[in-house]
């Protein structure tokens, strides 16, 4: 049984605006699926339909084997959700919120207390558990939100941009938790605008733009499809970039040089590497300060599929 399946899922709003325009999804149990797209692409609308907060206006979807429109209660029992902007009552403590969430999920008091205590420890909030959430940092709130989403051990977890606005350390901590969920067999539907996040965590990635899925596959496959490696060169002062470009064009096709680089070449074959480029430049009598082999990134995939760079990718790409 697929954990998440969607067939022609659509959501139109007043005025006929289609936020989600007929998407298909097939996500296996235990898979981490990265759902990438810029703001306004339809990521959150898709999530809200899959978690039963929004009725589809077309198509169908099942989560954990239950129809999101017709069996919303059954879906809610099997999913955990951490939506964008961790919605937490700032006057309550972390422990109180955990217990309230467990009650909302219908857990018995003793089991709830044990599970809450385990999860609070797991997300590193034991010392802060009795403090009001209003005094938590953004990272602590996100970790608490994740713990709350896991309180009833859901089989499918939806994380809607869980690391947006977090510092790198908090982001890394959350990634570790998501990786751990993979080991436990939980299906994770992860929406993000950070390419590195999808690259690090996701088994497969779907790219959504203007309400449609424009690419889907493993990060590696998508990057392979996206094109060849390229070489970026910074020349020593006095070396002529035009001559360097001419020399390196024997290895591939010149590209527009980015940032501090003087020359960029898209390599013709995957076997060509830095050593070949250095040899060509040396033969031409050109001196190199820095040279780098760059493999295609998800940002390149995104650029190719949508025609523009992903917002926030600069924060996430190394």
């Amino acid at each position, binding site marked *: 049984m697929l954990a998440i399946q969607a067939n022609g899922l659509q959501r139109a709003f007043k005025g006929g605006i289609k936020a989600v325009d007929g998407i298909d999804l097939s996500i296996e149990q235990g898979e981490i699926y990265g759902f990438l797209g810029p703001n306004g692409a339809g990521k959150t609308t898709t999530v*809200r339909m899959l*978690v*039963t*907060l*929004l*009725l589809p206006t077309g198509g169908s979807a099942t989560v954990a084997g239950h129809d999101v429109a017709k069996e919303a*209660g059954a879906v*809610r*029992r099997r*999913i955990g*959700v951490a*939506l*964008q*902007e961790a*919605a*937490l*009552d700032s*006057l*309550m403590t972390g422990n*109180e919120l955990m217990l*309230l*969430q467990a*009650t*909302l*999920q*219908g*857990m*018995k*008091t003793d089991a709830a207390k044990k599970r809450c205590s385990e999860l609070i420890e797991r997300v590193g909030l034991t010392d802060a558990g009795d403090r*009001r959430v209003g005094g938590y940092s953004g990272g602590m709130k996100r970790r608490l939100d994740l713990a709350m989403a896991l309180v009833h051990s859901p089989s499918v977890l939806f994380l809607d941009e869980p690391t947006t606005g977090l510092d790198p350390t908090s982001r890394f901590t959350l990634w570790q938790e998501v990786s751990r969920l993979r080991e436990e067999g939980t299906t994770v539907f992860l929406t993000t605008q950070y390419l590195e996040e999808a690259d690090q965590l996701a088994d497969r990635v779907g790219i959504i733009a203007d309400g449609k899925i424009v690419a889907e596959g493993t990060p590696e496959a998508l990057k392979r499809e996206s094109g060849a490696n390229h070489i970026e060169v910074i020349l020593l002062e006095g070396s002529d970039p035009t001559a360097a470009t001419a020399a390196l064009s024997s290895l591939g096709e010149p590209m527009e040089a980015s940032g501090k680089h003087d020359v960029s070449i898209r390599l013709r074959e995957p076997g060509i590497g830095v050593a070949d480029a250095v040899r060509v430049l040396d033969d031409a009598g050109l001196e190199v300060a820095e040279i780098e082999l760059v493999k295609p990134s998800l940002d390149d995939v995104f650029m190719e599929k949508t025609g523009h760079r992903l917002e926030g990718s600069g924060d996430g790409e190394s």
Partner: protein
Amino acid sequence: MSERQVVPALIRRALNELIRVPGAAIPGVLAPTIFMLGLTAVFGQVTHLPGFNGLDQYIAFVLPVGLLQGAGFTGAATGVNMARDIEQGWFDRLLLAPVSRPMLLAGIVGSASLRALIPTTTLVLVGMAFGVKFPGVAELFIAASLVMILAACTACWGAIIALKFRTQQAAPLMQIGSFVAVLFTAAYAPIGMLQPWLHTVATINPVNYVLTGVRQGFIGSVTWADTWPAYVAGFGLLAVLGTFAVRGMRRTGQ
């Protein structure tokens, strides 16, 4: 655990706000208290008019009005809090729970009923300090229970508005519902003294029956004839407003 456990859990959450931010209760207490004392100071002598049938304390006549206003403020505050929860995303957390919508609503309006006991207690104590006689335990129980029912009604009204407009900016609409409902009753003068049109409106206004039920212990004795219509009117109003509020919750996201 039954999903009924959700109701006390949500009530605890709402009361937690009062414990940790006690100032949140002040408007709901202060406004009806000032209103009650102010009206008594200005219109205290109207009890000499024939329609009041020899009543010697105007404050005893308007204290029940203050109780209903306190219920109105509490209910409106519940609606405002709900709109805040919608704006901040907390309400999504509730909607994502595998809990029936009537249970969620019961938790939300149940807190309003309990919170209404704060202005009720304050107003009764202030009224007694200004000479209102203690109505008796049974009478006070009837008055308090009717106030709690009305607070649940106004909380449902607040919820309907919050679900419709999804913003705290709709707060005036939440408040005006109970204000108008209490105004169009025999709040400030006996029903026989009202203008014919207002007399007619008060006669069909269910809140007037609730007011009569609350008032009976303070200016006379409790009678079955004034008690049962008050409960029927209160529960009837709650059933109607509750139905619309649950419908609003179910339609969220459609």
